[in-house]
């Protein structure tokens, strides 16, 4: 089984991607490829649910930035939900906690 699984569902707010496993150099392209096929409507919110993400390296961080660029290009929004503590610390060091909207609660993140 791949160390990364991505689930896709549609919530009232827009698409919700569940990132399960490790988002690293070898698996991040999976997320980037999937994002390229994901259509967003203006005003929608793309939610990346990271509650079950076990690891995220710099390639994973880049994939998150790609997701943000993809959302902004479609005039949509992006929220990182349930970011694990280890990744939250990295986001804090590189200043991305100011760039992404963060929501500790993945349920609340998908409320319109």
């Amino acid at each position, binding site marked *: 089984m791949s160390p990364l699984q991505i689930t896709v569902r549609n919530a009232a707010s827009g698409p919700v991607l569940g990132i399960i496993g*490790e988002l*690293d*150099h070898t698996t991040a392209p999976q997320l*980037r490829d999937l994002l*390229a096929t994901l259509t967003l409507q203006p005003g929608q919110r793309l939610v990346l649910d990271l509650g079950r993400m076990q*690891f995220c*390296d*710099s*390639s994973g*961080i*880049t994939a998150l*930035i*790609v997701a943000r*660029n*993809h959302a902004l*290009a479609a005039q949509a929004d992006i929220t990182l939900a349930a970011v694990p*503590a*280890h990744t939250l*610390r*990295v986001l*804090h*060091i*590189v*200043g*991305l906690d*100011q*760039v992404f909207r963060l929501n500790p609660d993945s349920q609340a993140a998908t409320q319109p």
Partner: protein
Amino acid sequence: MTARAGSQPDPYETGDDGTSNAMFAALLEDSAEELYESAPCGYLSTLMDGTIAKINLTLLDWLGMEREAVVGRMRFTDLLTMGGKLYHETHFAPLLRMRNEISGIALEIRQADGDRRPVLVSSAVKLSGNGEPLLIRTTLFDARDRRAYEEELLRERKAAEEARREAEADRARLQDALAALQQSLLPTTLPPVPGLETAAYYRAASPDQLGGDFYDLFPVDGKSFAFFLGDVCGKGPQAAAVTSLTRYTLRAAALHDPDPVSALSTLNTVLHERYTGGDPRYCTAVFGILEPDPATGETAVRLASGGHPPALVLRADGRVDFLPTPGGVLVGILPSAPFATASTTLAPATLSCSTPTASPRPAPDRTAPPCTATRRCVPSPPPTPAGPRTPSSRP
């Protein structure tokens, strides 16, 4: 069981009148003589001194000679090329004398038209009843196809060796080019800074892997020096291209306006404008200005950080402090990014900046922030610190 021995028909006999047998026999080589003369190989019998006593038509055809010109008049070695004569003298004949037979020796015979024909030669000595050698029987197989095949193999091998040499030369050229490019990404030496000792440590992941880590230290005016250190996302040629852009942008920006935030902002604008959309390229960076004060011997440090782990200050008493720069954002992902500033004074102390350890797989303790490990790595200060030190880079 009722079958009788001998009563079953021979599977090769199709009739009972013998007609088919005769036709079949006619199709076969009908006489030993015919077989000898027209065999698909050369036959030759010689006396023990090599004088040719008997030769078949096939071999005469190959030689382009008449039987009368050969039998009793020539020796076997007269049919051979000069090299073949020598080989016959030194190897073929002695081995044949010793063993009474020899087979599969590659020689060349001279044809009347001047061409040479490669042949495979086998010989056997016919002995009399009491073991005396009587004559030598020799067969020669036409080896032109085989020789052509061998030459083809040899050509192919030479071509393969040539290709390998070219590939190795290409690889060496590529390594040289990579080394030259890598050199252009990093300073070869650090300039002397009055009142400071400087040191840098850089280790690439592999010799042919262009790195994404970078650092530099250079004078910006008569009094102060600028330094920077950072890490470009990714590895390989694309990362090296960003590293190169980053280094020269920061150097140029510092000469224009040495303010740390201003330099990082210029870099941010350049990277963001250059790399947007689906393939974002960005870096973390610490940019600082060092202002040595000859009167006090102290050095003022002003730095700004964009998403880089904090620098460390190792004081003379052994205390290690972070020089926190919270809130600085990765350089190149936002149109306009905030950068955090910090300043300190190095009265005997060490300022250490480093990039996080590059590891393709998570370290055993994947929850520890990179700076924790760095703090553990900082060595104890020498008993009598000589003076301030500045940026050292650890991968």
